[in-house]
């Protein structure tokens, strides 16, 4: 077991205005095949942290390693390996049909047309998007939008899927759809990092939890270890563990 972890964040610090650090000395690592929840109240720095994970933003201090390699030496490869699903799907969509939306990433990578079609078809089957392929992404329901947004990342065949608040604004059926998308992905070996302030919907499915508060990592461990004390960090403690029956 000498393999380096899938993703390793080391002493990351970032501030926008000089005097107000948003991330302070953040360190944690994700192992292959894990399902980690990064929890924190609003404004704790979750989204800013996510934007660093595939090199979109540069830290002031610290570094991120992907399978032992510094991400800034990986070029575009890191964008493909670490797929980010943004909180607001509407801001992620760029195309006028779901089929084209799914093809956007692979087209940017310059893959041959035949290969793009193949990947889009695979993801379409995997996520059950067949009926939506000709629809306009912006007109879908919340749960459908989120699935298409996830699909648009999966086509790039990432090793780690990071989702920022994927349940925001979704009704019960939408949350159900998204969870039923993520669970089989995880079973097939996909590593997941789920960012949320709402533990009730996903705590049961994770194997690791990290608490972020005011830009610092406060706790890290298994859900059983972490859950009893989360309210100290402004996160609501879920009543039961199984949201999905």
């Amino acid at each position: 077991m000498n393999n380096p972890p899938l993703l390793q964040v080391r002493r990351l610090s970032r501030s926008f205005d000089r005097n107000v650090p948003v991330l302070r000395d953040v360190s944690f690592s994700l192992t292959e095949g894990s399902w980690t929840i990064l929890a924190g109240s609003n404004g704790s720095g979750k989204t800013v942290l996510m934007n660093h994970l595939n090199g979109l933003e540069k830290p002031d201090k610290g570094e991120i390693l992907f399978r032992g390699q510094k991400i800034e030496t990986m070029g575009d490869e890191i964008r493909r390996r670490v797929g980010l699903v943004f909180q607001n799907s509407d801001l992620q969509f760029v195309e006028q049909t779901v089929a084209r939306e799914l093809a956007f990433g692979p087209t940017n990578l310059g893959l041959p047309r035949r290969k793009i079609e193949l990947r889009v078809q695979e993801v379409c089957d995997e996520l059950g998007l067949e009926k939506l392929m000709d629809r306009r992404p912006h007109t879908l329901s919340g749960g459908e939008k989120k699935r298409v947004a996830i699909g648009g990342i999966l086509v790039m065949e990432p090793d780690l899927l990071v989702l920022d608040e994927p349940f925001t604004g979704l009704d019960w059926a939408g949350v159900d759809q998204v969870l039923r998308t993520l669970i089989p992905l995880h079973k097939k070996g996909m590593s997941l990092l789920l960012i949320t302030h709402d533990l009730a919907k996903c705590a049961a499915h994770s194997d690791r939890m990290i608490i972020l508060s005011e830009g610092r990592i406060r706790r890290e461990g298994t859900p059983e270890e972490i859950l009893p004390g989360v309210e100290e960090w402004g996160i609501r403690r879920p009543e039961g563990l199984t949201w999905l029956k």
Partner: protein
Amino acid sequence: MAEIAFLHYRPGRTLLHRLPGWGKLLLLLAVTAACSRSALIGLALLTALLTTGSLVLKPALGKMKGALMFALIMAGLLAFSDARQFGFGTPVILRAVRFILIFWTGILFTTAAHPAEIGDAFETLTRWIPHFPARRLNTHITLTLTFLPLIMDESATVDRAARSRCFHRRKNPLVRIRYRVEPLVDGVFRKSDEISRAMAARCY
């Protein structure tokens, strides 16, 4: 692309910040009028004035790169379309320069004035005009100035999401413009929907 941080009110204690709302508005109108009328020498003076203003406001301004890029692109497009209509010459350049200066002025003032302050100042200054819908326009101005930064923030997120799917690898300028502009326009329409609902909710 740089973080888009213009059109956001930033608290501060500069001279411009401390002017009363009506003072800011009058100064804004004066500088804008000057920008749109002056010839070369006047524009040079205004540039000096705005540069000084920017330096004074610097801590509050955040990163200006995004705003400047935007202004340059818009001015370039303006000059291009003018040049096609009237042929290339001094007037075309003047117009482009004026655009940049007016845009710049707008940035400085929106940085130093809270949206509600500008709206209220406008109302105070125009209330005496008979039948002038000062109160309504105040709401209108305040809401628009409140929502503009939101749209700018969104466009930064749109940009990030596209880059995270390797959009920066596309070199064709037409493709680049299309995928920049389309989501932004979509977003503006969605937002203007929200704005009109928010205005209705405030009994506009």
